[in-house]
């Protein structure tokens, strides 16, 4: 059966694909991903599946025109057809004045991570055991029985790292210089330009990307093959960088800075339990869900708490409360930080799958805005 591609096979295929193109230039992106899954529900297995997905994308360039074709049949005839189609489309494409030259040879950071394989680690054997994960989930579920509604309003919250990750990952997609310069981003400055240089969050906090950080460990290049290095986005509270693609960087007289390489927030030490002890009255949140944008200029989002929400009184978790809907801005909440814990990798995606690495600490935040109660369990 078509199997997972080895490095040698992948290189040979890339050479073959590029050799077919008759355009001025071409680039190819080839991936081979083997995935397996087993699903449990109602205490039994429901389904499982194994699949290897290969995907090749070739982008053909004719002067300032380009077009891409994606396919997965890696036989010679199919490769020839796909590349011919890309060449044909590239000729027909309108010229793009923002076309940048094709990338030459690059050097990349040497990461040591294997593929992302588990809930909290790149190495299967170092992952928290499924038994421990299940015990933690069961414990929370038991402690959530008979949750009572609480009045919506502004609360001091202790956000577990997963909850912090759910919100902080949103900031990454907003770090775009062009959108800011065009006046359509949270990071646009009144009167024009962007907010690089402004204090945007608490001065204890630093937000960066780094493909070889041991908590992130991810691909050290973008889909276009551009190297990714450590990039400081927010440095002790000050916005230091926004993402500039090749074209916009040239327009603005800067070096390109690209997003990728995961996202990590640092600024303190301590576990969630340590942070709970510092709170006289507040709420402990396990994670957030169904987070969606409400107002783009202020980066305001709405969503709900889920899977374990508790009242804190005098530094102790006392009782479970019903889930709550919030309206908050991930950026402005980071300006209301009381305490910062130690950073750890989390599963921040809504579907609980892999995705771009996110490492964040637990946080205590004051005046977190909850707007209504949900009966949902």
């Amino acid at each position, binding site marked *: 059966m078509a199997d997972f591609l080895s490095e040698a096979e992948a290189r040979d295929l890339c050479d073959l694909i590029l050799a077919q193109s008759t355009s001025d230039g071409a680039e190819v992106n080839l991936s081979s991903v083997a995935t397996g899954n087993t699903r449990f*529900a109602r205490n039994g297995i429901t389904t499982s599946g194994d699949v290897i997905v290969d995907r090749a994308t070739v982008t053909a360039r004719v002067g300032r025109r380009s077009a891409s074709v994606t396919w997965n*049949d*890696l036989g010679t005839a199919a490769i020839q057809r796909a590349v011919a189609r890309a060449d044909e489309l590239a000729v*027909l494409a309108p010229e793009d*004045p923002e076309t940048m030259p094709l990338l030459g040879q690059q050097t990349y950071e040497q990461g040591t991570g294997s593929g992302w394989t588990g809930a909290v680690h790149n190495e299967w054997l170092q992952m928290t055991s499924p038994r421990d994960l299940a015990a933690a989930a069961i414990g929370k579920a038991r402690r959530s029985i008979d949750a009572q509604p609480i009045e919506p309003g502004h609360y001091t919250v202790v956000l577990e790292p997963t909850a912090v990750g759910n919100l902080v990952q949103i900031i990454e997609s907003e770090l775009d210089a062009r959108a800011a310069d065009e006046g359509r981003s949270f990071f646009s400055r009144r009167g024009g330009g962007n907010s690089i240089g402004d204090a945007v969050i608490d001065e204890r906090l630093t937000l960066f990307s780094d493909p070889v950080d041991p908590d992130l460990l991810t691909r050290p290049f973008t889909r276009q093959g551009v190297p990714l290095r450590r990039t400081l986005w927010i440095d002790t509270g000050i916005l230091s960088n926004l993402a500039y693609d090749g074209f916009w960087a040239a327009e603005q007289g800067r070096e390109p800075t690209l997003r990728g390489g995961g996202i990590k927030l640092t600024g303190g030490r301590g576990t969630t339990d340590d942070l709970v002890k510092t709170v006289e009255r507040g709420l402990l949140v396990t994670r957030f*869900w169904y987070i969606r944008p409400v*107002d783009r200029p202020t980066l305001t989002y709405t969503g709900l708490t889920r899977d374990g929400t508790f009242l804190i009184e005098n530094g102790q978790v006392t009782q479970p409360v019903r889930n709550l809907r919030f309206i908050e801005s991930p950026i402005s909440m980071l300006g209301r930080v009381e305490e910062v814990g130690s950073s750890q990798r989390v599963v921040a995606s809504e579907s609980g799958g892999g995705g771009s690495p996110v490492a964040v600490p637990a946080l205590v935040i004051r005046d977190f805005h909850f*707007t209504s109660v*949900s009966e949902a369990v």
Partner: protein
Amino acid sequence: GGVSLKELCLLALDAARTAGAGYADVRIVNTRTQSISTRESRVTELSDGEMSGIGVRALAAGAWGFTANRGLTRQECQQVAAEAVERARANARAVRAPVELARVDAYPDGTWRSPIRRDPFGVSMEEKADLLLSANAEALRVAGARFVNSSMTFVRQQTTFASTEGSIIEQTAYRSIPSMTVTAVASDFSDFQTRTSGEIAPMGLGYEHVEMSDLQGRAREWAEDAVAKLSAVSVEPGQYDVIIDPTNLFLTIHESIGHPTELDRALGYEANYAGTSFLAPPEDVIGKLRFGPEFMNVLGDRNQEGALATVGWDDEGVPADSWSIVKDGLFVDYQTTREQVPWISDLTGITRSHGCAHAQSWDKIQFQRMPNVSLMPGEEDLVLDDLISATDRGILIKGRGSYSIDQQRYNFQFGGQVFHEVNAGKIGRMLKDVAYQGNTLDFWNSMDMLGGPRSYFLGGTVGDSKGQPPQANAVSHGCPPARFNQFRVINTAR
């Protein structure tokens, strides 16, 4: 020599039977996707592509197993089938009750195709680029409209399906998705507002849908709305009679009726990600729970012409169906697959699947997905203007905006694209920062006016996500405009 896809399917089924499967089905799927995106006067993306492979699902020892591979030789197809059965046997060790499937008829020669009139893949890229760039130019003629993005995406999915029940079915489904967003920026950069083409739904149709959408003709109106939103009045929160246009209401139906009526959610099978449902347990709610007023009727279907979830047969060979989910305001039935329908047959009297099995592609297992779910128009021939004239103090909401709902589908908050006051039966000032927020059953039970047949519109979404690993689904929702009495409106900027 060449072997047909049907023959490959039958070889795979034979291999599954030989390996001991009690039931097996196979899908060989070829999906072609083409996209062209533009901003202002540039084409930013031009892509085309085709992905294909085989997925075999087998039932052995009471458990499911699934394997998929891109290889389409005789040997590879047989090997995939054998592995699916091996997987089923491994899973059988942790299954609590053996899977039982409701009966389905055999269709040894089934064929179906989306009712397209013009093949989108036969239209040149130049024609497509010209259409989008001309539309962009129209939008930018409006003073204050600074940026515009427009795009069109086309999908053609060809599926050859066969099952050990004796069905062999070939289907070709098309999707056409044109779209535009205009951005206006305040001259002092203090604000920006966007207007997206909510009146244009993604559809299971061909290029004729793009032509009828008339992006060039409507661009101006969208651009004017985006600019007007900059100086719209920030809404005073409170209770209002909320009149919701179908370009917004379709998504509320999706979130608050479509999702909670998925039977697997109601029984806890999707709790880990997509959530559960307040419509549970079935014995407490079927025929008993009042979802809305007596004039409220909701149908599930997979046969509305041009709708996104419309097919000839589902991904386990069940023919397209149409059935009541809410009848005269009462909840009466869920969405089901062959495995699920026996769980509630005693309560519904229905012993056949409603045909909701769907897999995103060859490489993913089919499971219960939302069909088209639609709110039927009222009998009286009312249109939106009639709802407006009957309203003394209200807010009119059009277009799809922000949307968020809890994991049991109770507490929701929905925004929109364009909002207007309604005073003494007339449209007034444009508003902004509007969202309507509340609880699903309170909302539908507050519905007090419903548009008639002439006002029915088919909205749709292509991004519905469920399952782990997640799978995407495309689904349409038809509805007329409707009015909701004294519902809570919040100001999202405060």
